């Protein structure tokens, strides 16, 4: 690290105490810790309200309910960090199902058909990314247009009728419906758990992307671009490429989710996933991703969607009429974002005092 010979002896290290537990890291983990606490508190309260709540069956149902969506949340989080957004994810999930289902019905083996579905979704991402980077439109409006376009394509491909895919081979259905026994009795757990494959896939995606996002140089550029695009450009980062990559990644992961849904349901309804984008964006934002870009973690986003799922499950178990559930979900989103904003502005104020 020789900057200039002669500099090193002139400039001796200053006696500043170095702390390894850093602000940025601890802030992020603090937010996640808070979410864990809220989720645990909800679980405790619910276990009193409903004896069924703490059963493995209910837990598995809750995990199942958000694990495929969770894969999309991962993509959305990356996209929010780079400072973009994607409203088309619900349509793109459906698009992957419909393309893969149609290909399968045309006689292609389900694995190749699934690959085709994922590639088709990624190509939607390529189209959107081109409008965002080459023309310079905002991702909000581009993805809004594609949300409608892709939904229309789904309806056109299927003539508006759900594709029935009961003939999918068992081997393929296994990834969506199968379970793997998990024997933890030696650790004192009371029973053998049947863990759905979908949950394992979801966990794998989460672990891989959490690692990538924290460590990989490629994803570092995502943070730089989202934090301050101009400063990133002035650091030699080709920010348009980074944004392109993120948009395609999010659509590709939506495609993966679509194929998993197809395997799970053994069907491809062209109206699937309507409104899904809102739940996914809400989860990422509750988990700490900022719509302004530059911040967000995979763990936080997953906790965000877990919270929404626990709330949904609780509302159902408590016999809250479905018509009121949306109101409560909306209020929770608003509360989470408000608290986060207030915490953040206070933190910034403190930072300013220290700087002054």
């Amino acid at each position, binding site marked *: *690290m*020789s*900057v*200039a*010979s*002669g*500099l*090193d002896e*002139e*400039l*001796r*290290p*200053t006696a*500043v105490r*170095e*702390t*390894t*537990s*850093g*602000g*940025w*890291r*601890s802030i992020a983990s603090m937010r996640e810790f808070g979410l864990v606490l809220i989720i645990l508190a909800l679980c405790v309260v619910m276990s009193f309200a409903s004896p069924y709540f703490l059963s493995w069956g209910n837990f598995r149902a809750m995990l199942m309910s958000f694990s495929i969506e969770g894969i999309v949340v991962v993509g959305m989080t990356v996209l929010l960090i780079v400072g973009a957004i994607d409203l088309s994810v619900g349509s793109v999930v459906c698009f992957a199902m419909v393309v893969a289902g149609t290909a399968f019905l045309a006689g292609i083996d389900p694995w190749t058909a699934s690959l085709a579905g994922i590639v088709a979704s990624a190509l939607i991402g390529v189209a959107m990314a081109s409008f965002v980077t080459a023309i310079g439109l905002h991702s909000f409006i581009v993805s809004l247009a594609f949300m409608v376009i892709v939904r229309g394509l789904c309806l056109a491909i299927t003539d508006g009728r759900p594709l029935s895919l009961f003939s999918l081979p068992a081997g393929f259905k296994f990834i969506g419906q199968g379970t793997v026994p998990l024997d933890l009795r030696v650790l004192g757990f009371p029973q053998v758990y049947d863990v759905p494959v979908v949950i394992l896939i979801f966990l794998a995606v989460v672990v891989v992307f959490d690692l990538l996002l924290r*460590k*990989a*140089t*490629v994803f*570092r*550029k995502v*943070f*730089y671009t989202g*934090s*301050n695009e*101009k*400063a*990133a*450009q*002035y*650091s*030699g*980062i*080709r920010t348009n490429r980074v944004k392109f990559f993120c948009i395609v990644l999010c659509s590709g992961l939506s495609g993966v989710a679509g194929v998993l849904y197809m395997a799970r349901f053994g069907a491809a309804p062209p109206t699937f996933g309507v409104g899904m984008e809102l739940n996914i964006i809400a989860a990422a934002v509750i988990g700490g991703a900022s719509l302004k870009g*530059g*911040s967000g973690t995979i763990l936080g986003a997953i906790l965000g969607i877990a919270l929404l799922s626990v709330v949904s499950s609780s509302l159902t178990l408590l016999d809250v009429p479905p018509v009121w559930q949306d109101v409560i979900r909306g209020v929770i989103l608003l509360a989470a974002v408000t608290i986060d904003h207030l915490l953040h502005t206070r933190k*910034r104020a403190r*930072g*300013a005092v*220290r*700087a*002054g």
Partner: protein
Amino acid sequence: MPPLALEVRNVSKSFGPVRALDGVSFSLRKGEMHALMGENGAGKSTLMNIIDGILRPDSGEILVGGRPVEIASPQKAHELGIGLVHQEIALCPDISVAENISMAATNSRRAWLMDYRELRRRADQILASLAEIDPQALVGDLSISEQQIVEIAKALALDCSILILDEPTAALTEREAGKLFAIIAQLKARGISIIYISHRMAEVFAHCDRISVLRDGRYICTEEVAATTQEEIVRRMVGRHLGDIYPAKNPASVDAPILMSVSHLQDGDRVRDVSFDLRRGEVLGIAGLIGAGRTEIALGICGLSRLAAGKVVFEGQEVTPRSYAESIANGIVYLSEDRKGAGVFVDLPIAMNVSALDIDRVASAGFVSRAKEQAQAKNLADQLRLKRGSLDDAASTLSGGNQQKVALAKLLSVCPKAIILDEPTRGVDIGAKAEIHRILRELASGGTGIVTISSELPELIGLCDRVLVVHEGRIAGEVSGDDLNEETIMRLASGLAIEGQEAR
């Protein structure tokens, strides 16, 4: 003697520890055009903002028409007949000229509905005396000079009797400026008093009645234009001695071998045929007025803007970059003048800031190593004596000077061969400033090429071995040795030297 339209007595204003104005007095006669001159940072803008009610003075008083007044807001200033035309055009491009002109008037009216006919009538009336501009036209469709006139019309719409013009000709061509002066002459004839801020000596001497000079927040003098000379004013503006606050220069660098050579640089816009050499071991300065094209030259060299023509040769090898990434790979880096906007990532940790230019240096197999990143940041932070808590703290927790050191550490992280710094000490306190100067000098002696762009002449003179002066996108001259003084630079920067040559 004509009565005074405006009088400022003993006004002081501090921003934190910085004393921007120190007991400044100033008087404006009715119907005169009074130039206010001084270097960047002399206090002109602060004084004008106080007169327009944007800032409140800490002490002192202001009299309008002989009566003491308190100007608590721009609206109050309007009521007193004071109109300020900012240097930057602040019009709404998507609405009509008429609506823009009456914006402030509309704002203070209590009516529910817009009276467009009245609006147009007023705009017609005001514009009739100024220029042929269609009040219905959208402001965005007008030329810059027409927009400037709309700005003036906007001030006149408030029936102002005192008009402050802040560098109105900065963005105008000579012919457009000529039109503007004809209009100003009309206004003067109507009894309107004008405060005219400009760096352009020639136009001040051609059109103004009196000149007041500010320096370092202090009032220096007021002279009748007829009774003074341009040289005298320049001397008044800059007259000061430099202490030993700058590191020792390297006189031997004059004969040192050439490190980087830039030839015939053009960006098709601001930069016109710029060529210069940077020698080993020297600190080269670039001076010039704001908007002269200094930054654009740097952006061109570093591949941050597209070049129409020209090449960059470093140690005999052509390194003309097509992108900034390529320039970084070639070892030529740029420090932006806009620290918060383009220099540092204020919300990201210090360590992540430092590693941003080339993440691969602290990574292996595509994964960032936290240990390496921390070590790199710690090493550079220590070398630059960065005052910080933890390297994981966001850059926003640091003071301006230390943020600038983070930006500098970011550049040094790639062991650059040449660094172009744009206003490296802007908004930085004196202590950090001296340290940055020392660091630059040491880098230069260590073999790194240093080019410093600055609007602060004392800085260029104190720090640099040689200074290039840019005027309207061209290198107007090069000064070094005994010629390296503010008067020579100012003459070149304001185009005075060139005008003089043409006149001969």
